[in-house]
């Protein structure tokens, strides 16, 4: 709660705490392949290491995901971004924002951090090309002052990647 982007956020509700503790336990027992949770004592922000899957464009590369949980998690979606440098991908902006519907409109409280991670890895693995989204520069410029990707009105136009 000392980080600037989290300072404006309210503390986790009791329900959110309970649920996250359970998720954490489950993660430790059964972590999603290719991910490593850097355990801290901050339950509200998880930092997760992502390893590109073997046989894909991202094999051997390592990135970091930062997951911030809102007060009413899991009713509200967590904020998930790559800590720059973010992987080169048609749906990932250079500031780490990810264009993925389940992080925004299609979030459901029955999803978990683990299921998000699996979606993100599958999105990476299926990319045929390493490049930034076409509107990267414009978007990143508009996102100055640390705007959250959850405030963006996303338009999920491409299901292939």
């Amino acid at each position: 709660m000392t980080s600037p982007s989290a300072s404006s956020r309210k503390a986790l509700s009791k329900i959110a705490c309970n649920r996250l503790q359970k998720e954490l336990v489950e993660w430790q027992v059964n972590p999603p392949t290719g991910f490593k949770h850097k355990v801290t004592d901050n339950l509200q922000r998880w930092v997760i290491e992502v390893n590109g899957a073997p046989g894909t464009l991202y094999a051997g590369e390592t990135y970091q995901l930062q997951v911030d949980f809102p007060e009413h998690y899991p009713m509200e979606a967590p904020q998930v971004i790559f800590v720059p440098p973010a992987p080169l991908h048609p749906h990932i902006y250079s500031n780490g924002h990810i264009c993925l519907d389940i992080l925004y409109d299609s979030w459901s409280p029955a999803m978990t951090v683990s299921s998000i991670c699996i979606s993100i890895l599958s999105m990476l693995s299926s990319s045929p090309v390493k490049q930034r989204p076409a509107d990267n520069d414009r978007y990143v410029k508009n996102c100055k002052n640390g705007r959250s990707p959850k405030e963006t009105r996303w338009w999920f136009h491409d299901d292939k990647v």
Partner: protein
Amino acid sequence: MESEDDMHDANEIASVEEEDDYYSGGEDEEEEDMDEEGEAGEDDYSYDYADEDDDDDTGDYDFIANYSDDGDDALASRSQKSFTILKEEDIEQRQEEDITKISTVLSIPREAACILLRRYNWSVNNVHEEWFANEEVVRKAVGLLEKPFVKLPNFKEVACGICFENYSCDSLRSAACAHLFCDACWKGRGSRIFSFRFPSFLGELKLCKRATNSYISTSINDGPGCLTLRCPDPSCGAAVGQDMIDMLASDEDRKKYRRYLLRSYVEDSRKIKWCPAPGCDSAVEYVVGSGSYDVSCSCSHSFCWNCIEEAHRPVDCETVAKWVMKNSAESENMNWILANSKPCPKCKRPIEKNQGCMHMTCTPPCKFEFCWLCLGAWSDHGERTGGFYACNRYEAAKQEGVYDEAERRREMAKNSLERYTHYYERWASNQSSRQKALADLQQMQSIHLEKLSEVQSQPESQLKFIIEAWQQIVECRRVLKWTYAYGYYLPEQEATKKKVFEYLQGEAEAGLERLHQCAEKELMNYLNSDGPSKDFNDFRTKLAGLTSVTRNYFENLVRALENGLSDVDSEAASINTTTSSKNAAGTSKGKSGRGKGSSKAGNTSVRNTADDSGNWTCDQCTYMNVSSAPTCHMCHQRR
């Protein structure tokens, strides 16, 4: 959102339709017209450009004719109501009926019927069609499962799919799919209040959990998307219907959900739209294909059902959109025009327009009477010039140099702007006159009528003609306003049409001015008199007469303009080129139901001249008719 309006019953719906539907309703009136026509007998001719000796071109054009044209087809189409006003409870009732219909026919629960109807924009027919074409596909698309596709677990304790806490099986709930979630996750922890004791210096912090932290309330508070709520399990599409909402949501959320459902019935329907007037909760259902889009809500707001702009007959939606765009583009140039004061053309003192009528009188001692629009002397206007009210005739005014008065205007306005200015100023003038007339109408109803009833010892029920006059003025101002947009877009090269149009518009303007003047200024005498006036009944006859005459004239004007003045081309041409063969031209058109044109020639011989030029004053409505007219332009009274 429940308002007092809810108290009104369905009767009101009916009465409103009849009263406010100026051009499509009113069967009674229609019948009267027919009777009149019947009596007129052989005078039932089409076009009234009767005279033989006159080449005062447009002066003779008249569409009284359209009158006799209101044959059976017109009667039939006019007697149909093109719209229905729906109050909130009417909408609810219709929605409920539709839901019940679908639920009964498809043998599915009410909430399932509701989901289906919403999916197909509340069209009962579409639901039927889609459902019977392929029930499986439809079920899948909206998440209506016939049986759970998840087997209920056999364990006594199961983890809720959201909070992951263990619960005994029977305390969890699911949609039709059997994905189980606990009550707290479905509906929140309700009114439970968490109290935490903090060190005394922080005081006691009470966390009163309103149920925002639940699946259902989050969805409802996110907006109308809650109407398509599905099971929280991301792989599942099972619908969460209103039955579950009613069972699990808080009172407040249930209300919100119902509100969204009601709104959906209007907003997703192709036949119903909300009345756009601020604060009005009514909706208007329109019968597609029933002609004019102008509708009138019970709140008295009239609007175009198609484009939601204010009512704009006789111009079409496209022209309105163009005009509105044009206005916003020119609005900066227009600001100076709208300044609500002009110098008196005689004494140069600033005069503020505070009456709705265009006839201005400067304050004493000047007392100069002039026209607000052109600043010309009022004596140059209207019937005294033996012709028509000239103020709409921009070209003429320009040629005569009336515009010289506005040096500034000339300098800043290029020709096109000047032309636009002419039309805009008159459009806006009529708009504000209409606003003023609306306010006057209200004042009349709330204050003056009672006073008048007292002063003149007349029961208020006998004074309805005054209200009717004012309602007519309001409506006429609206029509007149839009005729200026019409005029602006009338192609320059259609010179004849333009002439005819300006003539008709001028007549309309003059007629309305007469009515306005009578209802505004003459009424004052009777309102301020010390006791009953002897001639009050004459006043009643005059005002009621003017009202009906003006109504007829405007109805005809609207129809003529809506037809694009389609009758003009050949006939107006004949006005210009021929003098004696006009009757032949009129009949040779061979319009069905109009073939009596030749019978009128006989009338022209029995004429009493009223002045040197042969113009005559109508006994019934006082209108000064040109010599050539065998019947009154305004009221059809025979000479």
